[in-house]
């Protein structure tokens, strides 16, 4: 009984002389292999080399500072209320006199924690943020053995003041802006 249209009859045909010595087939195969030596590689050596990520990629969050190095976040709680996984918690504090160079507004986040095991990297926090403080970057969240290590506090989230420690999010910012424009049309 024929089960499928693609079944093939086996033919035990006698091989010709050129087929029997195998050499042409081997050479043909080697030529294919050799050809790949001169082709561009499809892979990269990952940790040393890194590919550019697409702007839709959502990884490790960053809490941005403004041009003067002051934290943008005012602990308004909109990211936490937008978070579907309830991964974000924060505690606010009032800016004291003399801290104007640290925090942009009179209220700031004294504690800001994201549970990276809870986070589903949906990006709703950055969409909810009224102060352009939180962004999801193209950095991959490091792995660990201990659950406690995945609760990222401000030390893991806030970018550095120095220019070389700043995290560039312009690509992501542009992407969000375009997305918002598309939605308003």
């Amino acid at each position, binding site marked *: 009984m024929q089960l499928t249209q693609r079944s093939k009859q086996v033919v035990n045909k006698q091989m010709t002389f050129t087929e029997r010595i195998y050499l042409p087939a081997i050479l043909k195969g080697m030529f294919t292999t050799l050809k790949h030596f001169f082709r561009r590689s499809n892979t990269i050596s990952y940790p040393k080399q890194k590919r550019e990520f697409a702007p839709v990629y959502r990884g490790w969050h960053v809490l941005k500072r403004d041009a003067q190095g002051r934290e943008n976040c*005012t*602990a*308004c*709680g*909109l990211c*936490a*209320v937008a978070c579907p996984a*309830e991964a974000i918690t924060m505690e*606010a*504090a*009032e800016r004291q006199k003399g801290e104007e160079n640290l925090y942009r*507004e*009179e*209220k700031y986040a004294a504690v800001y924690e994201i549970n990276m095991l809870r986070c589903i990297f949906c990006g709703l926090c950055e969409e909810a943020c*009224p*102060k352009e403080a939180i962004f999801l970057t193209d950095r991959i969240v490091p792995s660990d053995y201990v659950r406690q290590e995945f609760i990222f506090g401000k030390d893991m989230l806030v970018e550095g003041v120095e220019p070389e420690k700043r995290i560039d999010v312009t690509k992501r910012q542009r992407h969000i802006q375009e997305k918002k424009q598309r939605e308003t049309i």
Partner: protein
Amino acid sequence: MAKVTIDGFETEVPDGTTILNAARQIGGDIVPPAMCYYSTLKGSGGKCRTCLVKVTKGSEKDPRPMPKLVASCQTTVMDGMEVANITSEEVTKARAGVVEFLLLNHPLDCPICDQAGECSLQDLAFEHGAAGTRYEFDRRTFEKIDIGPYIKLHMTRCILCYRCVFVANQLTDQRVHGIIGRGDHAEISTYIEKAIENDFSGNVIDVCPVGALTDRTFRFKSRVWFLNPMDAHRDCPTCSGKAVVWMYGKEIYRVTARKDQNGEVHDFICNTCRFHTKSPDQWTIEGARQIDRHSVISQGHYSENAQTVR
């Protein structure tokens, strides 16, 4: 009794009732928003102009429409009166204009403001306001003032509704604050930054429709939508003792008076209840407070009934 039709809904109210209160009797979307009128404060209303409505038929005897939009909190009903609120485009347009004026000098610092989430101006602007402003000048600014140890005054956020002045006049035996200056320079003041020290002074926080007067003991502690509002009462020698405690876990973050569906307080509470009774064992907790499900405060609060659903 007078028969009045508001947006097609008919109701009968006693003579002398205002259009706003007649609309509140019907309830629903047709109730005009009110920023300054407060039913429990005598003399309030007529200042903010957000409750403007169109009277399309004056009364049964004189069916001519009123020539201009009227403030519904000040205009009393007549028998056979017909009123258009949300069905009139003229009203919605005028209200959007009023909101734009209220927001001219408002700093829009909702991410910082403790009132965010329960702010009448926020709701009003969300419903009627434009996305941007057309104002090109600098907004008027004031210094933040501590009025006594419990109340913080952010004059920049004030919309001059005078509610707090009426509270001081009618609830306390001596008023020590008021509004000085006129027009753009008008501000709530205690003259020489005198502290408001009175047992019922804390109620100015509850009646304030914006975040101009906020609780200093709750300042920046949390956002209202992270807290669980619970009805609670206690035996208080000075006030009714009926309040709402805003809890986070087993901790009471703040105490407020109970607001009805119009956002108005009927049982004002004293400062001892509001600022000094923040331990859960001092209160008898009655249960979770009913919060409108469209409010951000109800976000993330799951009722116990949800568990019985299979």
